[in-house]
Structure formats: structure tokens, C-alpha cells
């Protein structure tokens, strides 16, 4: 029985999860949460889920840690002391016991005769070469067999970004200002120490283009290896966010204005749904790419998957940069109003 490496990774995961729960310094907790996400990405690689690992590392460890940190920059860094409550412990134990009871009739971990490996998965694996000729089966299933799911997923990204723009639009609840003003106000506030740091500037100017190039590589490499629209979008956005952090929001605004990003956000979803509607006009059902090319169904599916992944990439890039704009733009509103201190004591 070879020693399961996952055991070690699980050990670290348990340690980091407990650390996140008990650390009262929220910045440290955010960092440990980033470690947790990275470890889970490692675990997914061990479980042969390379696409999920790539996305979890890029989205889970990358973007959610950046978001949590930028929120902590606007809020209090320390959590209040709090006794252990017993009602939640009871609820958690009950739910945990129910789940463990549920696993008793499950096939063992890695058991090849499990029902899920018998029913639908074999057709996906055979179909990859016959219908598509695309080696990465996950991309086939993601974009065409269950392409409607991924359309829903892209719409989830659109919904979240619209929600963030609505909630963080104006600076401070009372003063209503359009998003242009939000970013304007943030751009010309006191220059953060970062922008006078020559080293960071030079390294960013060298690095950002390489990151963008890698993002494009991931976008088109999605058919042959782990990659695809989501990961590419996040990587591309991280290059822009890096530029925004080092050179300040106003220069990022000159590179990609919020208006342009809003249109890009909508354009991605429209490209995706548009590809589906295009197959409607050629009397295939919605999102059926085979009809897109009269000569060969396989070529049609290639084209469909390419367009769909491009749509996803555009939406995710614009979404991540917009969310960064509104969180970072909020820093201008963070100047501690005098009323804040005493209101907390009330």
C-alpha cells in the first residue's frame, strides 16, 4: 500500500483551516487563508484535477486573498475576543455526523467500479477524440457538452460585478457620485509610497507584458492542457492589477477606463450567448456548435469552443479589474470620518 501523499497535504490543510479560525489578527488570517487555497490546489493536482488546481490557485489563492486584504485595508485589522459558543458547535457536529453517515454507502476513494465512472464519464472520454479531436476532455465537457452550465457561470461573474458596482458605486452612502468620480478621487489622492519605489516600477514594466503573454498562452492552450477562459482571464487581470497597484489607479484608468471595462464585461457574455444563438439560425439547438461549419462537425465544434472560451476570458478579465477598481477606489473614502470613532463606542 503506497503511502498516500494526500495524507500530508490533508494534515497541512487541517492545520491552516484551524489557524484561520483562531487567528484574531485578520491580516495573518487572510495570509493563512491564501496558504489554505494554495494547498488545496496542490491537493487537486494529486487527485489528477489539473484544471481545477490551476483555477483554484489563480482564483482562490490569488483574487480572493487580494479582495480580503483590500477589504481589511478599509476595515479594522483585529477581531474582537469572543468566547466559544456551544450552539454552533452542536449544529456543526450534527451536520458533520449526518455527512459521515452518508459516506458509509459510498464507493471507496479511487474505486474504478464506482457508478460515476460507469455511466456518463466513458462517453465523455471516447467522445473527446471522435467528436472533437481536442485532447483536454475537461475543456470539451466544459464548453460543449455542458456549455450551458458555463454560460450560467459567466453570467454569475457578470452578476457579481454588477452587484459590486451597484454597492460600491458612490463614495460613502450619502454622497452620490458616478463611478468615474470614484476612480478620479482615488487617482489623485496622496501618492502612495509604492509609486516612488523605483525597483517596483522597473520590475513591473518588465513583468506585466510577460504575464499578459502567459495569459494569452493559457487562453489558447486550454484545448491541449490545463487552461482556458477563466484562468486566462484572471492572469490577464492580475497583470493589469499589478500595474494599478504600482503606478496608481489614475494611470491604470488611462490604460483601461472603467467605461471600456463595463462594455468588455457585457461583450464577453454576449459573445458566448451569441455563438449559441448563431447555431439557432442554422437550425441546430442552442449552443450546438456542430452546425457552425457545414463541412465538418468537428471543425465547427473547434470554432465554437474557441469563441466561447474567448468570451469567457474577456468577461473574467474585465470583471476582476473592475472589482479591483471599486475596492481600491474605495480607499479614498476610507479617510476616517471623526464620527466613526465615537459611534463605535455608543
Amino acid at each position, binding site marked *: 500500500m503506497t503511502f498516500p501523499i494526500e495524507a500530508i497535504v490533508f494534515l497541512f490543510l487541517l492545520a491552516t483551516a484551524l489557524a484561520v479560525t483562531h487567528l484574531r489578527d485578520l491580516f495573518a488570517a487572510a495570509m493563512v487563508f491564501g496558504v489554505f487555497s494554495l494547498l488545496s490546489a496542490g491537493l487537486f493536482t494529486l487527485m489528477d484535477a489539473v484544471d481545477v488546481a490551476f483555477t483554484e490557485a489563480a482564483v482562490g489563492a490569488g483574487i480572493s486573498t487580494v479582495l480580503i486584504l483590500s477589504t481589511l485595508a478599509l476595515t479594522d485589522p483585529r477581531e474582537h475576543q469572543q468566547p466559544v459558543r456551544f450552539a454552533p458547535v452542536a449544529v456543526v457536529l450534527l451536520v458533520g455526523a449526518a455527512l459521515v453517515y452518508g459516506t458509509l454507502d459510498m464507493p471507496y476513494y479511487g474505486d474504478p467500479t464506482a457508478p*460515476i465512472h460507469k455511466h456518463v464519464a466513458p462517453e465523455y472520454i471516447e467522445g473527446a477524440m471522435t467528436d472533437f479531436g481536442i485532447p483536454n476532455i475537461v475543456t470539451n465537457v466544459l464548453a*460543449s*457538452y*455542458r456549455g450551458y452550465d458555463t454560460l450560467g457561470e459567466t453570467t454569475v461573474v457578470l452578476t457579481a460585478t*454588477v452587484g459590486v458596482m451597484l*454597492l460600491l*458605486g458612490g463614495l460613502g452612502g450619502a454622497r452620490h457620485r458616478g463611478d468615474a468620480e470614484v476612480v478620479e478621487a482615488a487617482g489623485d489622492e496622496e501618492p502612495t509610497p509604492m509609486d516612488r519605489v523605483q525597483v517596483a516600477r522597473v520590475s513591473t514594466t518588465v513583468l506585466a507584458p510577460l504575464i499578459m503573454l502567459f495569459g494569452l498562452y493559457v487562453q489558447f492552450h486550454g484545448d491541449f492542457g490545463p487552461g482556458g477562459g477563466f484562468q486566462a482571464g484572471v492572469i490577464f487581470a492580475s497583470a493589469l492589477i499589478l500595474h494599478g497597484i504600482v503606478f496608481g489607479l489614475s494611470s491604470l484608468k488611462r490604460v483601461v477606463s472603467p467605461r471600456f471595462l463595463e462594455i468588455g464585461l457585457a461583450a464577453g457574455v454576449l459573445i458566448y*450567448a451569441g455563438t449559441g444563438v448563431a447555431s439557432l439560425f442554422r437550425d441546430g*439547438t442552442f449552443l450546438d456548435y456542430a452546425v457552425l461549419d457545414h463541412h465538418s462537425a468537428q471543425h465547427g465544434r473547434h470554432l465554437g469552443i474557441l469563441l466561447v472560451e474567448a468570451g469567457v476570458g474577456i468577461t473574467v478579465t474585465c470583471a476582476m479589474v473592475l472589482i479591483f477598481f471599486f475596492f481600491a477606489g474605495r480607499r479614498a473614502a476610507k479617510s476616517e470620518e471623526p464620527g466613526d470613532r465615537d459611534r463605535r463606542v455608543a
Partner: protein
Amino acid sequence: MTLHLPAIAILLPLLSAPICVAVRHALVTRLLTVAVGWGSLAVSGELLRQALSGAPIHYELGGFAPPLGIEYVIDTTTGYVLVIVSTIAAVVFSFGATTRGAALPAGREHLYYGAMLLCLAGLLGMTITGDAFNVFVFLEISSLSSYALIGLGQDRRAPVAAFSYLIMGTIGGTFFLLGIGFLYQATGTLNMADMAERLASLHRSRTVHVAFGFLTVGLSLKLAVFPLHQWLPNAYARAPAVISAFLSATATKVMYYVLVRMIFTIFGATFVFGKMGMDMALVPLSLGAMFVGSLAAIFQTDLKRLLAYSSVAQIGYMTLGLSFNSVNGLTGGLAHLFNHALMKGGLFLAVACLVYRVGSSRLDDLAGLGKCMPITSAAFVTGGLALIGVPATVGFISKWYLVLAALETGQYLFAGLILLSSLLAVAYVLRVVEVLYFKAPKSPDVREAPVSLLLPTWILIGATVVFGLRTELTAGLARSAAMQLLGAGS
């Protein structure tokens, strides 16, 4: 083109939402939203007609057969719920001042309409899909957009209410995802029909029992069934009145539909009521909801919170109808779906008219408005009577079927409890009537709400009376839907 009608039903709101986000013009996006509302009503009506005339419609997406690809399944119940959601959407979207109650930053109206369209797309997508995991995806779309819309309320506590709704909703959604994971592990497929076939032989598997448990708890959280309803009163009370009108009349209804779909299509009534004893759990919770909801509503000082607690009670009626597992019971439950949507939608729109003029929905600010705003107050009273279940209103129809179902199975106690809880409803409706009509008006110069606000309100309130008299559309449809479900289920 009619061959692709199911796809168009979802594409209409799904495509118009990004268009709203891209086009920054408030008026253009407003007109687009209203047009999409009425358009989806027309498409849903046509789909219901097709589903009624023949066998359920199957529409395969992506060109692959069901177990591999995803498919839409539209039977009578699906068409019925699609019509309910798009009717409310059409009327609420054409309400005169949709952005009035929201603390919208300047130049943001186009995103507000985009979020409303995304919520509609999520609800329709959840109703029409025949794939278990796809329900989760569209559940997240409708939930995320409703968190944002609720967080926009002018009340300073709106973000807090939206945050607690987000936490409870996401836990519910993740329980739902866990339930699907257990089902997928046991059956190997995600298509609902395929899953139902394979579950027939798995009634003793503990994985399936736990899967059923987590799916039900997850949906009860989203449906605000009695013990898990804490998020609903704050969410609907703090949100802009128009959003409360839209969500109270559609969101919980679609969650109820998913619960019904899961019980009768995936697991089958024999497994759910026989083996799992679902009715033993659901009946006390429903009765609890009816009494706690109504009692809490009586002591509220804010009109929107009062209506929100009454929603908790009305959801108790629906789940009670479900737990009888009889044609009459299910007919009562499904009919109440449509009736409650009309009543609560109309009442919240009436409150929106009051808030449009007075600026606050606290009861003592609304004193004496009966004289200054006669039409709106009349609308509120009519809606209140329907809530009580006065004959010749829709409320009476669904309570009639519930009592019939209770008497049919010999539970006279339940019939008595249903009537008793209606008396509680009388209490809180009369309390509002007393505030509106028998108190000196605070500010006498309040004018009546403009017609663009009153017309949609009276469309819904009028419907509560019209459908109270001619019941073949609501109760008749609910009955044929119940027969189809139970016929398929047993």
C-alpha cells in the same frame, strides 16, 4: 422559430441584462426591461399552452442527448410557474418608480435594471432546466442579484440585512450542492429523469437518505421554511419596496417549485412520504410557520416587516399543502403559489405607492392616509382581505383546497388550525386598516400616487378578485399540474 421557444424564454432576459450593462442610458435600459418583462410573459404563456396540449416538452442544449448534455423539461407545473414569475416580472418592471426606493449612486440606473433582469433570468433558468447541477448555477445567479438589490435599500440597515441573507442563502446553496454531490455519487448522472430511474433501486442507500436530507434543508433555507426563516423579514423590510414586491412574489415560489420537482420527479412520493416520513417533519413546521408568522406580524411597527412576516405564514400554507401528499393538498399548495404571488406582489406595490409619497413605511408615519390616498389604501385593504381568505378572493380558493385536503384525510385539527390562523391574519390586517383610516393624518397635504404607480398595483390587486371568481385558470391549472405530478410520482 417556435421550435426554439424554450431557449428564447431564457435568452430574452439573459441577453438583455449584459445589453443593459453596456448601454449607459437610463431610459433606454428602462424601456428594454419593461419590454423583456412583457416578452417573457408572452413566451411563457405560449410554453404553458404547448405543455398543456401535449406531452412535456424536451429541448436538448448543445446538440447532445440528455445524460451527456443538458436539457430543458417543460410540463404543466413548469409552465405554470414560468407564467407566475413572468406575470409578476412584467407588472413589477412596468411600475412607475422602480429606482425610487433604492440608494442608487448617480448614473447607475442601467446596472439596477441589469441586476433585475439577471434575477429574472436566474429564476426562469432554475424553473425550466432538467439538470440538477444547472439548478444550482441559476440559483446562484438569482441569489447574487437579489443580494445586491436588497443591499441597495435606503434604510441604513439594508447592507446588514443583505449580508445575513447572503450568509444564510450561500449556506443553503452549498447544502444544495452537497446534496447533488451525494446523489451524483450514488447514481452517476446529473439529469433529473435519468437520476429518478436509477434512484428507484437505491431506496435503502444511506447516501441517498443523506442526499435527500441536505437537498431539503438547503431548499428550506432558501424557501424560508419556519425555523430557517430569520433572514426573510429583515431582507424584505430593508429592501426597496419594488424589490420586495418582485422577490416576495417570485423567489420563494421558484424555490417551492424546485422542492416539488425534487420530491415528485427525482425521489418519488413513495420514497419521500413513505420511507423518509417527510410529512411528519413538514406538518409541524408548516403549522409553526403559520402561527409564528402571523403572531409576529401583529406586533410589527413597520408595514414592510409586517408583510414579510405574513409571507412566512403564507409559505407555511404552501408547505402544509405539500405535506398532505394528496391531489387536493397539492392543488391547494400550487394554487396558493399563484394566489400568494398576486396578493403579496400587489400589497408590496401598494406599500411602494405609500412610501413614494410619505418616504417611510413605518406605521405611525402612514397614519390617516386613507383619506389623502384613497385608491392606494383601497388597494391595500382588498389585498388584506385576500390575505385573510375572504370568499370571492384568491386567498379563499387555496385555503378552500387546503381545508378540503385536511378533511379528506380526517385531520379535523389541521382544518381548524388553518381557519384559526386566518383569524390571526384578520388581526394584523385590521390593525393596518385602523392606522390608515381611523387616525388623524400626520401631514394632510399628501397627494395620491401617480397613475403610473397605481395602474400596476391595481392590475395585481384586481387579479386577486378576478381569479377569486373565475378559478379555472388558477385552481384548474394547479389541479392538472398536481395530477400530473402525483400520477407521475406515485
